[in-house]
């Protein structure tokens, strides 16, 4: 596969390490009342879609960017590649 890195352009998927569902960005609030339950769900519950999937890839053999790749799990078509940092900020993550 080829991943179109937003900074470096098209790169072979072999340069990357795969992590999984991009929802791992949405780490729960540790102070919430049900924090243990929320962390359990965050860590262990994933959708397994046949189709579009937003997922985290790490450019380990490259610039060490974490990317959010939108990929069709049936065809491997990649429709968007974003810097995970930008996605994290959009989802309200900060310090």
């Amino acid at each position, binding site marked *: 596969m080829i991943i179109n890195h937003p900074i470096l352009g098209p790169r072979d998927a072999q340069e990357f390490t795969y992590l999984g569902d991009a929802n791992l960005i949405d780490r729960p609030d540790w*102070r919430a009342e049900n924090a243990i339950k929320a962390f359990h769900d965050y860590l262990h519950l994933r959708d397994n879609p046949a189709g579009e999937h937003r997922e*985290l890839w790490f450019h380990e053999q490259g610039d060490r960017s974490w990317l959010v790749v939108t990929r069709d799990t049936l065809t491997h078509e990649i429709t968007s590649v974003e810097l995970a940092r930008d996605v994290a900020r959009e989802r309200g993550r900060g310090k």
Partner: protein
Amino acid sequence: MTQVNRLQGGLISRDRTLNFTFDGRNYQGHPGDTLASALLANGVRLMGRSFKYHRPRGPLTAGSEEPNALVHLRSGARQEPNTRATVTELYDGLEARSQNAWPSLKFDALAVNDCLSNFLTAGFYYKTFMWPAIFWEKIYEPVIRRAAGLGEISFEDDPDVYDKGFLHCDLLIIGAGPAGLSAALTAGRAGARVILAEEDLRPGGRLLAETSPLSDQSGATWAERVRGELVAAGNVRFMPRTTVIGAFDHGIYGAVERVSDHLPQPEAGKPRQVLWRIYSKRAILAAGATERPIAFANNDRPGVMLAGAMRAYVNRWAATPAQDVALFTNNDDGHRTARDLIAKGVNLAAVVDVRPNAPKVDGAALFAGAEVIDSSGRLGLKSIRIRLRNGETRDISCGALAVSGGWNPNVHLTCHQRGRPAWDAGIAAFVPGDALPTGMAVAGAAKGDLSTAGALSGGAGAAVQALRTLGITAKPPDLPEAEDMAVSLKPFWHAKGTKRAWLDQQNDVTVKDVKLAHQENFISVEHLKRYTTLGMAIDQGKTSNVGALSVMAELTGKSIPETGTTIFRPPYTPVAMGTFAGRSVGKEFRPTRLTPSHKWAEERGAVFVEAGDWLRAQWFPKPGETHWRQSVDREVLATRGSVGICDVTTLGKIDVQGADAAEFLNKIYANGFVKLPVGKVRYGLMLREDGVAYDDGTAARLAEDHFVVTTTTVNAVLVYRNMEFARQCLWPDLDVQLASITEAWAQYAVAGPNSRKLLQKIVDPAFDISNDAFPFMACGEITVCDGLRARLFRISFSGELAYEIAVPTRYGDALMRRMAEVGAEFDVIPYGTEALGVMRIEKGHPAGNELNGTTTALNLGMGRMVSKKKDCIGNTLSEREGLNTEDALRLVGLRPVDPTNPVVAGSHLMAEGGPVDAAHDQGYITSAAYSPVLGHSIGLGFLKRGGARKGEILRAVNPLEGVEVAVEVVSAHFVDPEGEKLRV
């Protein structure tokens, strides 16, 4: 003349004669020959024995789809089994042997299997050898494996080199037949970057085997001229002897280039084969078509071959399989073979065409509306029996029979991304379906355009269209005039009869076997394939799949497209394992990382151990030491007695900088870091988000906004990855930057009561490292050896007064040598990872054995370190109820009650007098060593409620090794429990 079946003409160079042997006999051929064409020219039709029945076999085809003519090529370490004689280029001195035959190809003892065929039908091994079970492994399987099989491997290391390479192009064209060449000409003239891959040694494809001209020249001449123009253009890379084996995601193709297979052995410095990864923006599949046979009784005798193959042997290689031949066809293309054979002066005994309205043939007897129903000849075809239109039978003697059942487009690569081919009733064959791999177009015979004119214009058109999508304007070249014959064919798959008629010659699958599978309810095509093994092995059913489908369709009363088709997967043709391995063999299988003082350690005779990709010195034997324990005990005692040096360069080192660096470390470590003063080091424990401990190390604060973090050797990459995840995905607004600096610094532990004295001899006088100025857990940037920058950390893994000193990597070797030199007066010794391990067990420090992926901070006795006042990875889930029970495991020390007994790591702890089973398991021993300081074995382990059980006697049982020892629960800190030595 020995080449009794050599004809005039052809694309072989008669000015040179090549000598070769087959089964020890000498033969001659010419450059341009394949092994199969040269053997045929020498009158040899018998080239192998079949897989199951050991039936005599000769070549069915003239290409890579060959199921029968499989030989051992070369000898010794270069012996290669299952080589297809039909694509083996002849070279002088070529050595080939038949396979699957004993004692000889002509008299094969296991041909007895052929008489037992009633017992060896489809799925026989599932039925015949069911009982008794023990017989399967001991008797049936070895016997079957010896009897059924193909070539043998040499069991020697392959002496040749295989390489891997990467190529990029605008347009990849797969196949250099008429369609591929015209596509390449179009794209090449438009200036596109083109790769033209061809499995044959020269361009032309089917043009090389045909006599119909392209305008005023032969097809082969035209192909040569086009090649000349393409190669001269510079933007087209023509790759002969290169098979595209797979279509992968996003326009990536795999290709195998056989760089040296046509030579006795590779030229110096050249690989045998190269596995290419080709990145293409667009691709055109112009892989041509493969002819298919018609099944009839005993249709597998040497001499029976595909009509197009026989035409190729006659036209391209000037070799005929026999002087008297016959033709069996259901279509007009078969008649071309008749025409060309007659033109070459071969006697055509009969043309048998299943169509009642078959076209006339000049120069041969035509039997229209007739079928071939049987054949005879023990080691080669002697005659065929035909059934005439009126039902009468007649025998015709001939040494070879050309068979044509029509042509199947080579759709294989269109299916590699789950695409399914579609049935085209017009040519009675599968053509590419709609769902092609991204960026792929198909042209020529591969698309079902079976005329030369159609291929030429189709290739050019496909190139124009593909380039248009890339913004490159191309126009079709002036193409030569070529034959444009429409396909005229009557679908006909097998002649009815009761004898065995072969569908898949490679796997000995007959029409009967397919019927049997159907009777036994194997209705799906995929089940049929697995039950009968049809379409498996070297040829992957290239000549047999559609025939078998037609029989299935007949049996089920469905049409062929309703019956389905099996999925084609890469590789298109077999690929040697060595090609996939490339240079990643033996020691090169993965990188080996060496520390800067590796050479120094080697000079000292160090014994090395693998730690991840690294080699680390395990111990340094001295003359006279015959057992590793002698070396390790000595190293421990010398270090604890005076001073020792250990190379710790392999530990991961990560530079953390930025205004929020301390805050960042606070989040990735379970314990706190915000309050760590500048100039101090702190131990840090990292948890996974599920609360389990996964790595530990130290963080040294060199400045307000600058830390250096260390990790364990094997987790260095993982920790760095996780830190980047935390930085970019979880807390993107923290002002912090990371860099891996593992390889930037060489680092050494200097441990023992004289360690400071040793260091004072190399640390420049401007830096005071006395106990007051540089106390336990201090760190700082200093210079050594008159101005070399260095970092000094007063940390200890051994429990002694100890330091770690780091210098830029290129000075590591020199620093090691200098320390050995100045330390001589203290009898300094180097120590390896074993002594390191003994000392950390004596001190009770956890390491990888304790941080084993199942243990928490609580288990490790560090529960109180996990801060409840801050957010950090893993702290929330470390509070899970199940991880915090009363009887949770705790790290303890263990010593044998009888000091002469060993403590064995991996032993489980059981109560005295209690049962030894999982239900009564109290814990387990993780690390064990002989302590030369204490004079007996010691261990670390996890024990339920371990913190409150000091003094208890337990059984350490190890049923695997048959060891049971009584052990006493003690503190994990065997040596200097108060840590006084660290602070002097």
